[in-house]
Every structure is written in C-alpha cells, then in structure tokens.
C-alpha cells in the first residue's frame, strides 16, 4: 500500500527483477519458518501431549475465565480512568491557579512513573495501612491512577487543539464558561481524541497483565499456572498471547473504523500526545487512514 510512494509503476525488466527478489525473499522467510518448526519438533514441543491439555474443556474454561478477569479489570479501569482523566483535564485548563498546579503536579508525577511500580505499591503497601480489599481493586487502582494521568493529557491536547474562535463565539452568544466547554468545545474535541483514546485503551488492556505480579488471576497468571501444571509453559503462554492479540486487534480495528468515519464526516485531524508509546502509532495510522476513505 505504501510501496507506490517510493517506487513508480515498474517496467517489464524491473518487474522481472522484482519477481525474482520476491521469490528469493519468500524462500528466505520460508527457510526461517522451517528452521523454527524443526527446532520445535526436535525439542519435542510439537508433541501432541503438550498441546492436548489446551483442548480440554476445563483448561479452556480456566483460560477464558482468565481472559474474563482481564476484561473485567480493564473495562472498569477504562471507565474510571476516563472520568477522572476528564476532571483532571478540566483542572489543568481551569482559571484557578491552585487547581491548575495541583492537577498539573498529579499528571506530571504519575505520567513518569512505571506502572509496575504503582501496581506493586498498591498491592503491597496499601494492605499494610489497613486497606483490605480484593486483589482486583489493587489492580484497578494502579491502572486508574496511571491511565487517568495519560488520558488527562490526551483530553487536554484535544481541547486545546480546537480553534479559539469556537470558545469566543460561544461566549459572544452569552454562553457561560461551562456551557461553552460542555456544549461547544468538548463535543468537537472528542472527535479528534477518539483514536488516541482507543490506542491508550489498548495499552491499558495490555497493562492489565501486570496484575500478574500481585497474583491477580488474570489471563497471564492462569496461563502460567496451566503451563506449570501440564509442564507446557511454551504452549500455554502461546495460547495466552494469541488471545491478547485477538482482543487487541479487534479493538484497534474498531478504532480505525471510527477514525476513518470521523475523518470522512468532519475532516478533523487526530491529536498526538508525548510520552505514551502507542500514541505515536496512532499518529501514524491516522496519516494513512486519510486517503483510504472512498471519495
């Protein structure tokens, strides 16, 4: 798809040469795959005995239960992080300097924190201070604290990306600050934020696997258990990876669909925010998504 950018339509000689190179490249890749399969077979990892447990109903239910736990943590954390992130974003844009400084400090502090440290902290430190809740909540808390900071930056960037004339026009029509913000600014800004938000949600979903370290029985933990029980860590973890990939690809697909539709309808570009790995990728995808819409 991107190829025509760097190479013109090929002439007959170049086409022949490209076919040759393609065949060589395909052969090289096939060779690599073959070597990997040979390695798997030689070490006995392709034996039916190692894969068979993954076809047992009980094991499948066990793993899918893990996936469900992952999705439960992720969805609750997503909703809470979005709500708190929105409040934080308003705080950073507030006219009151105290509110601005406090929310700004929160965002800058937790954005630079590794999430794993927060998970360990909530799972190991809070119980020491008399907080006694299910592990589920420690994972949710860590995810919400971290992601609300990142999402706040996304919301803020989205709101700031809107032309100032929108707010000014709203004020000129007699709207109050909050009326202008909620009726005029936020609905327009939201459209530009969609791809960045969804890609952060994909990151959040992947990050639920950190619940592993404080023994929350999510997908990764259960895949590890399965691997230890049946002596097939490679196969069990492979199955877990496939489940994660399937869910994340589905989420990304939805994001792309939304983004293309938004673009076609409103012609609004996406925003980008520094500091979060997946967001750079969103920027990439939105650049490509543009010419794809028909017409």
């Amino acid at each position, binding site marked *: 798809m991107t190829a025509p950018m760097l190479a013109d339509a090929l002439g007959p000689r170049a086409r022949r040469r490209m076919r040759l190179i393609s065949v060589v490249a395909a052969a090289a890749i096939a060779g690599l795959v073959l070597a990997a399969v040979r390695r798997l077979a030689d070490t006995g990892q392709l034996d039916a005995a190692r894969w068979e447990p993954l076809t047992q109903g009980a094991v499948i239910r066990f793993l899918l239960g893990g996936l469900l736990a992952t999705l439960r943590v992720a969805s609750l954390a997503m909703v809470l992080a979005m709500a708190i992130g929105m409040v934080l974003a308003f705080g950073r844009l507030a006219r009151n300097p105290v509110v601005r400084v406090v929310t700004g400090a929160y965002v800058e502090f937790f954005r630079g924190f590794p999430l*794993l440290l927060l998970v360990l902290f909530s799972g*190991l430190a809070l119980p020491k201070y008399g907080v006694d809740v299910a592990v589920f909540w420690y994972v949710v808390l860590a995810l919400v604290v971290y992601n609300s900071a990142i999402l706040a930056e996304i919301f803020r960037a989205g709101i700031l990306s809107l032309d100032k004339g929108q707010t000014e026009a709203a004020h000129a029509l007699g709207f109050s600050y909050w009326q202008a913000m909620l009726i005029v600014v936020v609905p327009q800004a939201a459209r530009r934020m969609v791809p960045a938000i969804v890609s952060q949600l994909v990151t959040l979903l992947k990050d639920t696997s950190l619940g592993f370290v404080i023994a929350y029985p999510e997908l990764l933990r259960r895949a590890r258990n399965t691997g230890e029980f049946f002596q097939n860590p490679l196969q069990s973890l492979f199955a877990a990876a496939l489940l994660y990939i399937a869910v994340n690809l589905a989420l990304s697909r939805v994001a792309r669909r939304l983004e293309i539709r938004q673009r076609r309808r409103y012609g609004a570009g996406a925003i980008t925010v520094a500091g979060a790995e997946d967001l750079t990728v969103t920027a990439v995808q939105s650049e490509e998504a543009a010419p794809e819409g028909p017409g």
Partner: protein
Amino acid sequence: MRLVLDNADLYLAGMATTVALTLLSFSAALVIGTVVAAFRVSPVPPLRTAGTLWVETVRNTPLTVLMVLFFFGFTKLGIQYSAFTSAVIVLSAYTSTFVAETVRSGINSVAKGQAEAARSLGLTFPQVLVRVILPQAFRTVVAPLGSVFIALIKNSSIASVISVVDLTEVADRLNNDTARPVAVFLGAGMAYLLLTLPSGFLVGVLERRVAIKR
C-alpha cells in the same frame, strides 16, 4: 527518606541496570525498527507482509507476556540466556515495533518529489531510501522517537518480572527486607523521574536542533 539514602548504593546499582537495559534495547530497537520500516515500504511483497506480521503480533502482545514467554517458554527450545540478556532481547523486539511505525510515519511524511527526483537520477530503491528518504524521515520523527525512548525507560521495569535487578526489583526486594513500602517505592519512583524528566528535556533540545517541521 532516610531508608532510601541509607540504601543509596542499592538504588544506584538498580538505576545503572535500568539505564543499561534502556540504552542497549533502544539501540537494538532503532536498528531492527528501521529495517522493519524499510521492509514495510519496500516494493517486495513478501518483505512487506513479514514486516506487517512482526509489527502487528509483537505490538499487540503485552510486554509482560513476551517477557515471561521468552524467559520461561523459549528455554524449552534450548534458547537460554541470562535474565538480563533475555530482558534486552524482549525489550528490543517490543520497542522495535514502535520504532518501525514511527519511522514509517516519518518516511511517509517526506515529500513525494524527493523520491521521484532521486529515482529520476537513477538511484535504486535501497539508495533512494538510505540516502535520500531516511535522513529526512529521521529528522521529522525526533519527538515521537523520544516518546518511545521515555516509554522504554518505564517499560524496562517489567524486566523485574524475570528478576533482573533493576530499580523496580531493588525496591521490591528492599520492601521485602524492611517492610516499609511507602518510602521504598516512592524512592524508586523518584529515581525513575530522575531518568524520565531529563530525557524529556534532552529530546526537546535535540528536536530544536535537528527537527524539520512539516
């Protein structure tokens, strides 16, 4: 705070490991990522497919899963490395997908006329890419690559899952010994901020020096 200062040597050693993990993985990820990006824009269909597959599978798997899969799963294939080396390999692979996507966006942002001009001068595809497109592409993606770098500093903490003794693992062990989690983890968090904040600043400086705005 006393506790952190008393164990400053442990924290510094952990920080050194975190820095080493980050720098080694980022260098490798830059190389792999650029090659994958080149694959993805090349006129050779099998290479394009291979590049896309690499990016989509590795990027969509949680880093923790990759780490555990490589360290505990791949040993069964006779692929066995020390925890540190394993962590570098996994972090490089994971980060390479983000580098690849970023570099690709840079390549796509270079004006079309550049490639056309280079081709009309008779340069081949690799020459066009390496001599004309990539030098310009890199300069446009300094800031996003900086974001990837900072994310990598934070992601390197996941190496502690396979007990590499980085900052996070130092804090975890110190907490086990002293049972003073607040001081211990706050200390580690501050140490991470000591790494991420200056990095953000340096990226900003670098960007002003070399970046081209488009």
